[in-house]
């Protein structure tokens, strides 16, 4: 019996526990999932103030209405100022010029995602939610899709790259949070980076998509998300396999009396 005790301790019970542990993980995640996040999203919706002052909001939203005709230019901004009751010269309120319309569109659409989150399926998994939210956000670009390439050009200028990257990161974080992701390990970073890349690709694809209702963009997004999931799952599995092999090796050596 005494000899059996060390064996009991050193054999990899982890192999048997593995299935049990992943099941526990899933259950835990499911419990924490959508209900909690919907409640949080509702709370955020009421709490978060707009980052734009009332004047900026008035002028920029009016300017956005002129973007389909005039594009992301100072002309649209001037028209917006006039519509809001200001003067032409009042566009001095926006030191970045036409870029402020792009920024306004990005920020307001990102904040509007929280409203959409409450209409997500109650027990859908995270991947489905991400797809639904990302599609909703892409469809918000519909009225200005034919002008979005101008916006991308503005976003790519050296002066505005920090802002555009920050907005992309914030959007990616918002999508994952509202979809119900609760990872707080280093996967937090990899998930967001991957989603940001997928979303940016889909947005770029959309600028030259001429299909009805942007159906091709939808397919593109779905394909990319599926690929992303596969890669993630694959990497996870490889990691777990390596861990188990290493664990087995260490346990085996210990059972032979090696002091490690």
């Amino acid at each position, binding site marked *: 019996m005494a000899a059996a005790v060390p064996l*009991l*301790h*050193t*054999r*990899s*019970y*982890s192999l048997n*526990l*593995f299935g*049990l*542990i*992943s099941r*526990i*993980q899933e259950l*835990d995640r499911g419990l*924490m999932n959508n209900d*909690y996040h919907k409640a*949080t999203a509702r709370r955020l919706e009421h*709490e978060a103030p707009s980052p734009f002052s009332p004047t900026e909001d008035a002028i920029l939203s009016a300017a956005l209405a002129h973007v389909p005709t005039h594009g992301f230019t100072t002309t649209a901004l001037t028209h917006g100022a006039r519509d809001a009751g200001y003067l032409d010269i009042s566009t001095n309120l926006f030191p970045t010029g036409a870029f402020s319309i792009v920024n306004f569109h990005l920020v307001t659409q990102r904040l509007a995602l929280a409203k959409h989150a409450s209409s997500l399926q109650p027990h859908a998994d995270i991947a489905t939610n991400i797809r639904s939210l990302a599609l909703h956000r892409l469809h918000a670009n519909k009225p200005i899709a034919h002008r979005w390439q101008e916006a991308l050009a503005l976003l790519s200028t050296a002066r505005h790259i920090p802002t555009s990257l920050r907005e992309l990161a914030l959007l990616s*974080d918002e999508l994952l*949070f509202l979809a119900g992701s*609760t*990872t*707080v*390990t*280093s996967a*937090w*970073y990899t998930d967001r980076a991957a989603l940001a890349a997928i979303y940016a690709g889909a947005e770029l694809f959309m600028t030259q998509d001429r299909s009805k209702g942007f159906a091709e963009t939808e397919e593109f997004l779905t394909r990319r998300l599926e690929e992303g999931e596969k890669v993630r799952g694959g990497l996870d599995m490889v*990691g*777990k396999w*390596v*861990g*188990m092999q*290493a*664990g087995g090796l260490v*346990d085996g050596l*210990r059972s032979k009396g090696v*002091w*490690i």
Partner: protein
Amino acid sequence: MNVAITSRSFFGQALHRPTPFLDFLLPSFTIPSSRTRYAPITSSSASPNTEPSPSSLKSFSSNKRRKPLSKTQREFLDRGLRVNQAGELAATLIYTHQTPPITRAHPHLRSLMHRMYFQEAGHFSTFNEMLAKHRIRPTAMYPVWSAAASVLGWGTGLMGREAAMACTEAVETEIGGHYNGQVRVLLGWVKEMEDKGEEVGEEVRELVSTLKRIRDEELEHLDEAVGEGAREAKPYELLNRVIRSGCKGAIWISERV
């Protein structure tokens, strides 16, 4: 449960949530649900008896106005909770990797190690939930701290019981002091809010009491480690100083990165 604890950190995430499902694997010792008091060799700078406990922590008052946290307060919490999560991650990994060599050499320490591990695992899951709930980003140094803590735990475990306990003492001293500082700042906020006649929110109250509880448990571990011969480790001064400065550096980095 012994085997589950000796499993590698890759399984860490699930295991660090103490769930009733795994209890059947722990036949021979009890997991204490309440704190067991040990005679402290070192005492914490603010013992629970002498700590100020403002009235607002105990009672509700609904006729006061409620203000959301300011930007600096919010940033403080972001940084603080991020560091706390990183600290608990490191603590759980240290215990995970210290336990096999220590319990092999000193079977009587098994219950102590497991109890400390379970408490740390509980803290870790608490902070994981807080981070997810408040949308705080975890530290980018997560894999680095995981590796460092694993190596530290394994190394000190192989060096012997005294070294392992010295490592625990050093880590818990730093972490305990860190939590103490956070509790002090939060109590300062509570006092400020009370002075201004604002209502102290439920979340702040809960956070203060959670941090206090965790701090007390960490300081308990410190006392237990000292009781088990931490001071008798052969390169005690060196170990202590190196590990404490490593912890300080890790805290500083995690606050920013």
